[in-house]
């Protein structure tokens, strides 16, 4: 009886260590899995392709990498500066909300157009849509 108890006790002690390592392995597996999905998402956050631009910057055909939230306008302090006289200093904001891109006009003089239609309130932007700010046109690509 006493010997069975001692054997059982050592079994539990070894099991504790064993389980600790099993947990580590499982946790590491979960980490690598989530890293894979996260880095895939990182690559595809989105880009804007410059379709039309009267000034030297940005060049036509240039690909602008997007962050989660991007302000656009004539001011150099914007995330995406657009040095065009027809653009307002702080013109519009393009940002991700719940995995979708949304554009909002920040009270600009000449307005923001999505596929040629002037927006009144924050508007969802889909893949391939054209955004026009002043005389600059940009196409969203995920």
């Amino acid at each position, binding site marked *: 009886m006493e010997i069975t*108890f001692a054997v*059982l*006790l*050592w079994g*539990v*002690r070894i*099991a*504790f*260590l064993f*389980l*600790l*390592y*099993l*947990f*580590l392995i*499982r*946790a*590491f597996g*979960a*980490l690598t*899995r*989530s*890293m894979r*999905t*996260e880095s895939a*998402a*990182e690559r595809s*956050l989105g880009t804007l392709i410059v379709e039309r631009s009267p000034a030297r910057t940005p060049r036509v055909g240039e690909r602008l990498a997007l*962050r*989660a*939230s991007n302000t656009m306008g004539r001011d150099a302090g914007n995330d995406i500066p657009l040095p065009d006289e027809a653009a307002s200093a702080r013109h519009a904001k393009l*940002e*991700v*909300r*719940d*995995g*979708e891109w949304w554009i909002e006009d920040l009270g600009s003089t000449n307005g923001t157009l999505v596929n040629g239609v002037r927006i009144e309130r924050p508007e969802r932007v889909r893949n391939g849509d054209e955004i026009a700010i002043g005389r600059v046109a940009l196409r969203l690509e995920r």
Partner: protein
Amino acid sequence: MTVLLRRGDELRLLVWVTLIAITGSVAVAATEAAGFAYSQLAIPVAFICVAVLLHVFLATRGIRGDQLLLPMAAVLTAIGLVLVQRLASSLLLQQLTWTLIAAGAFVGTILIPKDLTTLARFKWTWALLGVALLISPLLPVIGKTVNGARIWVGVGPANFEPWEAVKIMMVIFFAAYLEEYREVIARPRRIGPIPIPPAPYLLPIIVMWAIAMVVVIFERDLGASLLFLGIFLALLYLATGEAFYTLIGAVLVVVGGFVLYHTFGHVQVRVDTWLRPFAEDLRFDAGYQIVQGLFALGNGGLFGAGLGNGMPDRIPVVWSDFVFNAFAEETGFAGAIALLALYLLFVYRGMLIAVRAPTPFLQLLAGGLSFIVAFQTLVIVGGNARLIPLTGVTLPFVAYGGSSLVTNWMLVALLIRVSDITARTRGTP
């Protein structure tokens, strides 16, 4: 039902946490009583229920992103409970109560700040509150001195270390401040290779740090001042990428250490017991704790004496200062490495959350919080193993102590919030 499946990895990992908590508790109980009663299982089962409820809470709230931190924090807390049961069983119920409070603080931190960016807006409030809390143990009625360090505040029956909460406030303040002025601070004028930081912008940070240092010297808490300097330099480096600032910090540590050594008796004792704990005049006196700690480490060997089977009780105050040695004695090198690997994984996960976060404030916040866990582990385990002088910081989640447990669970909640925001902006699950 589908709501619950969204955090599947987290739930699966919690199954393993359950098994670890139960085997650990059974091993300790069976060794002590040379027999086993089912009532012994009440504590680990209660803890697991809390952890699963937290998981369900996160799932029903629709929190996205990280699924690793909750089980990691849970397994470390479970190990902590097993060790309190082993080393100071009279404190076990108290520690379980603190765990419940910590779970409440976790839920509160997930629920209350609607938008984490609002934390940054109140940065001066955090700074003032932090300084007030830091000074509070020096006040006459509520302040308490324990083991020569005046770092406790007692209100009624509850005692807590305000310093524990202050470190999170410091990270929020530094992160918010550095986000606002990082452009200026990151591009200093240079004289040769030496960057001259623009003083007016750095001044508030240095003042904060100086206040903290002075207070900490008067409260005689070495670990806290080291951690403080660490947070300060880590965030400065994360925000600016300027290695020279860290170099200045290293010089500050050396100079400060030298001055402290020659002016304060308690610093001198710490250094002496580190350098020569076995000396004739120290080994049964100031060096007794570290000497017994080293014997425990050595006694552990490769696979340990078996949970409950060692003699870690010989180390004075083992449950709060030397839990690492107790764990290493009873589970051996294998267990000690597993424990350190858990911290490594935790910190790695936290830093990944920091790298991916969408705004500089959230990046600095997550980076600073992960740094706290990394640095605290390094400083206390290093002290326990006699690699550096011993300081009184706690081993995160594992060491006995309520204030530390509560703040660490709030820290986890903040990291999960940052990860949730990142997942939402990037559109990942």
